[in-house]
């Protein structure tokens, strides 16, 4: 088992192990930060652990042929990828495999979880794969002036709202911006490069690498892999005007007096308000309504104006009960906004 922390030396050690195991199509167990207690079998392929945004990490085994099939056919040896994910997680492993398959260069920062280190390593990067949360932070750290060679920005790991897609387009007007929906278990399922939030509805029938998706009656996305295996994603979506829009994960929903609030929806509205640069929305126990919606916001704004805008665009129960101004939004080890 390789345990890969966020430091460059750990990442390089894991990258070497990935290259060897991939060449031999042998077994590899990857863990980020700490060795999970779960006992894993050394089958050919990669065993990794889901990021555990909620709940405990879970072991997921992926055969090499399945992983190789998820590598995009577009690419070449002149591409330079900036690593922003831990390679011991699915998103980072995908970037590493892409570079191995296409002979592209991988730029490894001193720490993958430090925005300044990431920017410093990426001056010559042509390709950036990042979470929307990290992209916002890169933009706030004047990354547009420092990552000037970017041709392709791929946003994944979290839902890319219209506000973050617009931000990417403003900062890097010459780059293609792609949103991707992927999970450790179902792999890379959908991608869209039209700079619009969500995905066109047809991705359900024509997903990547033969994947087919369907929405259950409650909106949960179920993916059928090319081999016929079904994966319940735990992610909830809605179809609106032939567009697939994200509602959130079941366990993320905040119960305000019996009304289920999607934090993703509230974040989307907040990020569209002038002056709000970043935010996270979560529930907190309330002696009045069971739970109350709390919003932590980064930027320069007037709280009364933000509240007024929320009241116009959201249902009453969705309007945050508390707006807290913060310097930065905490992130999980996987680079996602922590709720």
């Amino acid at each position, binding site marked *: 088992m390789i345990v890969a922390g966020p430091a460059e030396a750990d990442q390089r050690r894991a990258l070497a192990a990935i290259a060897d195991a991939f060449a031999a199509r042998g077994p590899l167990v990857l863990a980020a930060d700490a060795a999970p207690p779960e006992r894993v079998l050394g089958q050919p392929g990669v065993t990794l652990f889901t990021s555990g945004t909620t709940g405990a990490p879970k072991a997921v085994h992926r055969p090499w042929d399945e992983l190789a099939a998820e590598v995009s056919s577009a690419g070449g040896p002149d591409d330079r990828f900036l690593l922003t994910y831990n390679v011991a997680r699915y998103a980072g492993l995908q970037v590493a495999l892409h570079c191995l398959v296409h002979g592209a260069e991988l730029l490894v920062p001193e720490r993958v979880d430090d925005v300044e280190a990431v920017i410093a390593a990426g001056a010559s990067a042509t390709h950036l794969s990042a979470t929307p949360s990290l992209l916002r932070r890169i933009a706030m750290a004047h990354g547009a002036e420092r990552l000037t060679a970017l041709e392709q920005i791929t946003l994944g790991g979290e839902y890319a709202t219209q506000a973050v897609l617009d931000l990417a387009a403003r900062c890097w007007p010459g780059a293609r911006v792609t949103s991707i929906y992927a999970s450790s278990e179902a792999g890379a399922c959908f991608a869209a490069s039209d700079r619009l939030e969500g995905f066109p509805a047809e991705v359900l029938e024509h997903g990547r690498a033969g994947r087919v998706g369907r929405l259950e009656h409650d909106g949960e996305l179920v993916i059928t892999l090319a081999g016929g295996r079904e994966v319940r994603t735990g992610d909830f979506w809605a179809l609106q005007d032939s567009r697939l829009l994200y509602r959130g994960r079941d366990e993320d929903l905040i119960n*305000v*007096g019996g009304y289920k609030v999607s934090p993703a929806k509230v974040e989307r509205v907040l990020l569209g308000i002038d002056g709000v640069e970043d935010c996270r929305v979560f529930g*907190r*126990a*309330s*002696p*009045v*309504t069971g739970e*109350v919606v*709390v919003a932590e916001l980064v930027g320069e704004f007037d709280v*009364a104006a933000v*509240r007024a805008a929320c009241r116009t665009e959201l249902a*009453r*129960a969705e*309007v*945050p*009960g*508390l707006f*807290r101004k913060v310097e930065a939004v905490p992130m999980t080890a996987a680079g996602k906004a922590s709720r």
Partner: protein
Amino acid sequence: MAGEPLRVITEAIAEHRPGDHDPDSDILKDIGLDSLDYASVVVSVEDRLGVSLREDEIDWSRVNTIRDLAGVFERHADPA
């Protein structure tokens, strides 16, 4: 912290219903907050005072006015 909860609650209520509110006015009936506004006021006051009220610390049947609610926060800070 005596007096502090009263001031903080009055300020938080004014964010929803602007004006000077009498400490003895009924939060729901006189001032007209609904439960969502009320929840917002409570979480704002918790945040500003750095405390978390448990539901079992409050007897809602006895908490009607701003002064009553201030009493809940004062008792929370000083249970003795």
